[in-house]
Each structure stands twice: as C-alpha cells, then as structure tokens.
C-alpha cells in the first residue's frame, strides 16, 4: 500500500487559512488543514476556472475565489451556488512531515 502513496507537499506549508496547491501528474490538487487533519481535493472548481487553493476557507468549507461558490472539502459536496458538482477528494496520510495520497483513488 505505502508504495502507491505519493507526497504532495510539506505539512508545515498548509495552514487553516491558507490551503496549498500541489501538482500530481499534471493536475492541480488542493491541500487543506482543518482541526488538525489534512484533506485533499481537486484544485479546479467544478463550476469554472477558479482555483480553490486561492480561495477562502471557513470551517470545513472552501469558497472559490472566482464566483464565491462553496464546497465542503471533507466530502467534496458543493454547498453554495453556483457550484453543483462534487469535487473529487483523496484520503491523506501524514508521514515524515509530508502529506501523501494514493493517486489510484481517482483515475486521472
């Protein structure tokens, strides 16, 4: 299992206010910190060209900087208009000060 994991970024780079963009096989992902746990979603908003890593975090929701639609970044569910489609999410593992995910969880 561990061999399949890929490191995205240093855990210390992520704060509650400021999610961080990470790249994986050409796709941008977004890493969040909430209540001591790390979460990963696709970075590109499902509504349009906004990147959630530039967005505004409140609790377990991220607001897209483009039209201020919102998602729950734990479940990926869209929680405020204009967003309707879910974000893809990945389970995270923290090891050696880094955030790891298994890319196979979602085919690219």
């Amino acid at each position, binding site marked *: 299992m561990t061999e399949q994991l890929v490191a995205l970024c240093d855990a210390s780079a992520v704060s509650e206010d400021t999610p961080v963009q990470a790249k994986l096989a050409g796709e941008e992902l977004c890493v969040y910190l909430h209540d001591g746990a790390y979460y990963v979603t696709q970075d590109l908003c499902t509504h349009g060209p906004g990147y959630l890593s530039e967005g505004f975090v409140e609790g377990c929701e991220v607001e897209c*900087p483009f039209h201020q639609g919102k998602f729950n970044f734990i479940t990926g569910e869209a929680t405020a208009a*204009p967003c309707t489609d879910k974000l893809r999410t990945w389970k995270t593992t923290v090891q050696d000060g880094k955030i790891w995910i298994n890319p196979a969880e979602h085919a690219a």
Partner: protein
Amino acid sequence: MTHVVVIGAGQAGGRAIEALRGNGFTGPITLIGAETHLPYERPPLSKEMLLDPASPKIDWVRPAAWYAEHNITLKLGQTATKLDRGTKTITLQDSTTISYDKLILATGTTPRKLAIPGGDHPRCICIRTLEDSEKLRPFMAQDSHIVVIGAGFIGLEAAAAARSHGAAVTVLEMAPRPMGRGVPATIGELYAQLHRNKGVDLRLNTQISHIDGPDTEPQIHLADGTTLTATAIVVGIGVLPEQDLATQAGLETNNGIVVNTHAQTSDPDIYAAGDVTRHPNPLLGCDLRLESWQNAQNQAIAAAKNIAGIPTTYAEIPWFWSDQYGINMQITGLPSDTATEVTRGDLSTFQGLLFQLTGAKLTAAIGLNSPRDLRFAKNIIQAQIDVTPDELANPAVKLQDIAKRARPA
C-alpha cells in the same frame, strides 16, 4: 398548491427556480422569458465569448434536462405584457393569461440606447444577450476598427478582447475617467493607462454628435468635428431597469422595483430579484440597485427561500469583478471619491489592493489579481473591524489575521 410564476429567465430567474426546488418547494413553477434561451450567465458575453477564437461554451445556470426533471413549465420566447394584481394574472404577448399565487419579477435591465441621430445604426451593438455577443464576435479581427462608446466595464472588456485579436480600438467616453461609476479615480486612471499601453485610443471628455455612413461602415462624428470610421460600434452606456410591468401594476418603483430585505415588493405576493430591484442593504444602511452577478444570484435565492417558507434576509457586502487583459479586478464595498486610500502591493504591476477607509472603518477594497486578500477585505468590511492605514499597507500583516479580530464592543 401554490403556483409560483417567475418573469424573466435570466440569471436571477434561473437561480430563483433552482433555489425553490432546492429548498423543498414542490408546487408548480412557471418560468416566463422573453429570450428564447434557458437562463444563462452574462459575464462571459464580454469576456470569454469575445476572446476565444473557438466557439465558446455557454454558462447555463442549469442544463436543459434539469428543468424537465424538476417539473418546470417553460414559456420561453414570450414577453409578459401585463400584470394584473387584482386577478393575480399575467398576460403574455400571445394573449394567453397565466395565474399565479406568488410571483417573482426577475426582469433585469435593458441597455440604454444611444440617444443621438444614427444611434440605431445597424453596426451599433449593445452587449446584453448571447445574440449580441455572437453578432460582435466576427468583428474581433485584425482588420477591424472597433469603436467603443462608453468606458464602463463592459465597453472596456470588449476593447481588451478586440485588442487581443489585433483590432484597432478607439474608446470614447464623456467623463474624465473610465469606469467612473464603479471604481475610484486611482483605479480608473490606472486602467486608462493600461488600455493606452495596450494600444487603445482612449478619448476621455469626448462627446459624440451623430452617426451616419453605409450599413457596413458607420461613421462616428464627434462634437469637436473629428470623424471616425468603424467596422463595428460597441455601445456600453449603461442599463435601465425593466420595471414597466411593475409600474403599470402600481407596485412601488424608484429607478428599480422597490423591495424590502426579504426581496418582497409592496405587494406581499410579489417578489423581485436581481438587477431590477432597489433594495435596502442592512449592512451598509443604504438603498442600492446593483448590476452584479452576486446580487442576481443571492437575492434570487433569498426571494425563493422566503416563498419556500424559510424566512431569509438578504444582506451582503456588494462584490463585483471585471477581467481585462488577463487581469482580474475585484471590487467589494462601496467605492467613493472622498475616502482615504491605502495600497498594499504594487498596483502599477496589477498585483495588489487599494483600500478605502472612512475613519477607522474599511468601506471598499479593489483587488488586482488578489482574489483571496479581497475576500478577507470583504469580511473586514462586513464585521466593521477597526483598521489602521499602516497595517493595511503592510504586507507582513496578514489580512486574514485582521479579519479574525473581533468587532469592537
């Protein structure tokens, strides 16, 4: 069962219906729209639709299948011509009548026409609908001369798109600065310089006397005697609220249909939302009529929730954006010409924020390529947090930390 009728199938109309269904309203819904299209978002009409050489994607509020799945009766390509509050009926242009129990007026705005001789020249294009944008697209070409009348957001976005295709562009503006209604002078002047640097012939303080010339080659005659020959003319001189139905039905109007904080008009069974409303903003303590995407969406949601039995007050700090030459500008609060100004970052490189303060309160912020910081500024305005010019100017002080400070007792 309560029958909800929505007049106006624009962004507000579409969002109202989505929110009615999303908040448990299961009764019949009818959507009446003068355009033949399902609700779509207009911001791309002066941006991506003109910039992308390939056929651009349309931002539908909801895909066609959604309306069928949610049992919405559509009356598209139909203008509502009369509202009778006594019988609670609406008459359509084809003379059919529809009864309502609750009505939402989401009729938006219509572009102000050029009130000069020749203002109706066939190459004069206002950008409000998909068709307008489609009509303008072919003129976005190297051998065109686009003359933009009115240096507002839409006109300048069209100018930027035309320049990106290599067209010659002249912008004519009556006022001494661009975007005078929407942004402070500091930003207006910065954008005047930006457009000039990009090769736009921007003429401020300029009056037009009339337009004539062949159908395919309009000639614009300026008050100073100059004549310009254009391939197409973009007319962006503002919009007027589509309030005639309301006025004729005796609803209170005042440059917009007057609603309360629940998006309700002077008739409790009639709500209104979007560009067409004049509404109180309880956070700012003033009445506003906004022409913005945020207001169209969220006021419509508030109206829908109130109809669905979830009492909802519409109270938001205004927020707007404009994209020109790949620079994202966002505006929040109420810009003024008299506030104290502080900058963070470097506006001249289009990376930073301009803050406006009145006393210790932030009243407006304009962010250039700084969406996240702007969002914190919006929170600071909303929470009325006391700020100092020094901390706003100092990039070492994070705006999120200021936003976290509790409101003073």
